[in-house]
């Protein structure tokens, strides 16, 4: 039977999608603007007899994720910017131990305690590992409630496939906004195959124990483990890169924008098109791996780029890396919890195109 369309907040839709993806254990700690997600998990994980723990801190929550994931369970935590900063040590450990996990950041404005309004100021932290050591996490950026549900649902299997944590990078608007959503079919965690790398599994099979850890004091061994992980990253880059393009082919100027900024830029695109200006939109869905090659290809076709962000300019650096000097790259941003309006983004388009 086809699923009915439901009106949900982004935070709730992420929660329901995780439950349906067979999330076996959720660990959280309250912070605005992602509280509805933790509250949703408290109600629905416990109702299904799964694990929900409101930890004593964000640090505790991410380390509980490490523990649960070590056993092969689908595990998740969520927070907002300052809380995600606190989780970085644990995320580094997860990556070092090659453990899957889903981490949701419903980002707010910073730095520091900042404000509770939406922001995209966590781009650098999200796409450059975020904690100490050589590693990346896969980063998925939803543009609305349906997308947030779909990407969260898929994040669990992507993370397990690559044994790399997946970060869902949303923002306060996507978390708080309500839209219609059709939810994916529920999976039963009891039906998942056992993980040969997980703690406990080896003993059952009469094999030597599995030791899940990130520590290795032998430099050559640690280097080999890092190189193996980076070889996997190269494979991820080949298979996982995703983006959406709107009216890009004939465009003179292409917005590069993700999440909420992509929605606003799409509005500005429509304003420009009705006035005869050839503007397109390139929306990265995977922020890591970033779609460098496709942007480079567009740059070589003579297009200009305008990176629109709710930050002082972070993704624009990746756009420049992609373009490699082949085309002009401009930036327009608002920060501090302000969201650009489509009118102000359109005004910037007019200025750049000399209209």
């Amino acid at each position: 039977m086809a699923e009915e369309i439901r009106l949900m907040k982004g935070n709730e839709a992420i929660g329901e999608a995780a439950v349906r993806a067979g999330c076996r254990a959720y660990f959280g700690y309250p912070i605005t603007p992602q509280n509805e997600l933790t509250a949703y998990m408290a109600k629905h994980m416990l109702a299904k007899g799964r694990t929900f723990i409101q930890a004593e801190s964000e640090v505790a929550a991410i380390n509980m994720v490490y523990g649960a994931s070590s056993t092969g369970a689908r595990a998740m935590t969520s927070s907002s910017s300052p809380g995600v900063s606190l989780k970085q040590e644990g995320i580094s450990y997860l990556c070092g131990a090659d453990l899957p996990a889903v981490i949701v950041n419903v980002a707010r404005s910073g730095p520091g305690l900042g404000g509770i309004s939406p922001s995209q100021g966590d781009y650098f932290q999200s796409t450059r590992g975020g904690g100490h050591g050589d590693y990346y996490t896969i980063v998925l950026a939803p543009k609305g409630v349906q997308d947030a549900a779909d990407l969260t649902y898929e994040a669990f299997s992507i993370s397990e496939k690559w044994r790399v944590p997946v970060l869902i990078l949303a923002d306060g608007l996507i978390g708080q906004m309500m839209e219609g959503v059709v939810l994916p079919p529920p999976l039963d965690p009891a039906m998942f195959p056992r993980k040969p790398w997980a703690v406990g599994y080896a003993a059952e099979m009469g094999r030597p124990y599995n030791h899940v850890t990130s520590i290795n004091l032998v430099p050559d061994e640690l280097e080999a483990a890092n190189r193996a992980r980076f070889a996997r990253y190269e494979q991820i880059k080949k298979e996982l890169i995703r983006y959406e393009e709107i009216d890009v082919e004939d465009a003179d100027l292409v917005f590069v924008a993700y999440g909420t900024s992509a929605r606003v830029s799409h509005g500005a695109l429509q304003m420009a098109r009705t006035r005869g200006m050839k503007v397109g939109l390139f929306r990265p869905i995977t922020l890591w791996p970033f779609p460098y090659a496709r942007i480079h290809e567009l740059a070589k076709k003579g297009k200009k780029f305008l990176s629109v962000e709710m930050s002082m300019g972070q993704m624009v650096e990746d756009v420049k890396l992609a373009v490699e000097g082949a085309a002009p790259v401009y930036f327009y941003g608002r920060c501090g919890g302000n969201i650009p309006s489509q009118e102000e983004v359109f005004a910037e388009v007019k200025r750049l195109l000399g209209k």
Partner: protein
Amino acid sequence: MTEKTFMAGFGGQGIISLGQLWVYSAMKEGLKVTFFPFYGAEKRGGIARASVIVSSEEITSPLVTSADSVVVMNQDSVEIAEKVCKEGGTIFVNSSLIKTDPARPDAKIVHVPCNDIALKLGDVRVANMVMMGALSAVTSAVKLDTFEAVLKSFFPASKHSLIAINIAAVEEGKKAVS
């Protein structure tokens, strides 16, 4: 068809419920919707606002910055209504509480005595539903023909006794502007 509505009032006037019921009804009528609320950190009072869009097409920016219609429920929100309404847009004024019209000669001003009508029906808390009836009648964006079913799923069973007065409020709101 796209109708972008900005709703503004005082905490407790039901701005958030009004926005949610408007988009819920629109969704049941087959439209795409977005609802983005913002309100102060106050437990009671303070500002309550919502960006509300219903459309037959995919919705781009969920922020309403140039509104086709503005709902303004209290005097303090008149100023924001003046700013956010697009050229030639419609401003719905709760004339029970607002005594000075928005200074927007280009806009169509629709007066709806929401509190007075709600009090006549027996409960001032349905003033927001009176406004929703008026919004529906004037914009035709959301017909509200599935409203009873919407209320049945919106309210928990313990509140189903309030469905009748909410429907009556919507009907009175429609009549007030016809």
